[in-house]
């Protein structure tokens, strides 16, 4: 049985859009076919992440990291886990054949904004000689989290998540394209909502 490590990179608990995506992917990976472990990032880590967590990642055949985009990069909490895992892996060994997938959502409508983030994760893979697979980047995360649960409307998301499941199952190694999924709501509508919101914020900030 293949070991799969799913990492929830959000600290928002049950409110996290990332958790919705993680559960969705988890549901596509049959319990009878895979050993699955879920690691949640932590707000407080004394010195280093617990060895149990790092060991789980090091023995995984596939690592799926699901997280939000923060300031165009990796959230600080997840970055800490990557730093700790890197040091642990160098010292204790790890499965170099492990495939790494990322599922990222952002507040912007255009998911292409995550291009540099993908490069960071590729650098991480290169440093550890891990098998970079591909990214699923979703614009307007909260909208995507709602859409993903809606039958027929969620086809783009479903197709992308199924691609991860199939890739793991088949043990593919060939290069794959990343998925960039825009929200169903047209961008001008989202930008209009954003403009109204920012206007309100500026007014509130000015009145303080």
């Amino acid at each position: 049985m293949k070991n799969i490590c799913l990492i929830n990179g959000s600290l928002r608990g049950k409110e996290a859009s990332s958790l919705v995506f993680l559960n969705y992917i988890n549901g596509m990976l049959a319990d009878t076919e895979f050993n699955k472990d879920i690691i949640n990032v932590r707000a407080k880590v004394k010195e280093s992440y617990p060895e149990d967590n790092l060991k789980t990642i090091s023995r995984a055949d596939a690592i799926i990291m699901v997280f939000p985009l923060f300031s165009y990069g990796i959230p600080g909490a997840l970055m800490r886990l990557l730093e700790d895992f890197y040091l642990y892996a160098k010292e204790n060994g790890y499965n170099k054949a492990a495939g790494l997938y990322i599922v990222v959502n952002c507040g912007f409508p255009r998911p292409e904004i995550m291009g540099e983030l993908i490069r960071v994760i590729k650098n991480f893979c290169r440093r550890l000689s891990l098998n970079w697979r591909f990214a699923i980047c979703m614009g307007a995360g909260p909208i995507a989290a709602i859409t993903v649960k809606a039958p027929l409307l969620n086809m783009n998301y479903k197709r992308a998540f199924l691609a991860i499941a199939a890739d793991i199952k088949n043990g593919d190694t060939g290069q794959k394209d990343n998925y960039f999924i825009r929200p169903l709501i047209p961008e001008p509508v989202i930008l209009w909502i954003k403009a109204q919101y920012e206007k309100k914020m500026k007014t509130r900030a000015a009145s303080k």
Partner: protein
Amino acid sequence: MFSLSSNLLPMNAILILDKDAKTGLSEDYKERILMMLKEKAHKVEVVELGRNDVTPCFGCLLCLTKHVGICVTRDRIAEIRNNVNRYDMTIFLTPVIFGHFSSTIKCAIDRGCGSHNLQVIVGYGDDIDDEEKSTFIDLTRKHRGEMDIVHPGFDKQVDVYLTTSSEDSEAICEAVKKYL
């Protein structure tokens, strides 16, 4: 080009660095920039953050909605973030890890510790490959500064530099001089 007031008034600067990742290179840059700021009679506060001092951003968005500009997590970062308007310039000094900020500095950035007037981000490292170098620069330059201010942080100017040697550090200080 962004400029700070008339360039005659002393400004308040804050230098935020990762105390767990200090190297000869980071200390060299720190000394250079501090000397330069003090020579020009600017006030500078040095904050050395360690991994045990910082709490990551929870993404609760309360700083954008309910308590605009205020972070509800209580720690050293919140003290900086909640008084960020007092700083004319923030200098982030970070090791470059996989072409990214260190987790400690990223926690500070995620939580909005950067001055809204001017941020200078300086990455350092002795063992950074070319792709990591360009990733680090692009990560900031493509999305911050003059390029694409879409986040409601209203940063006026964000500059990014990378140093791998004492010569680089000197050149960065020269480049920053235009703001002083």
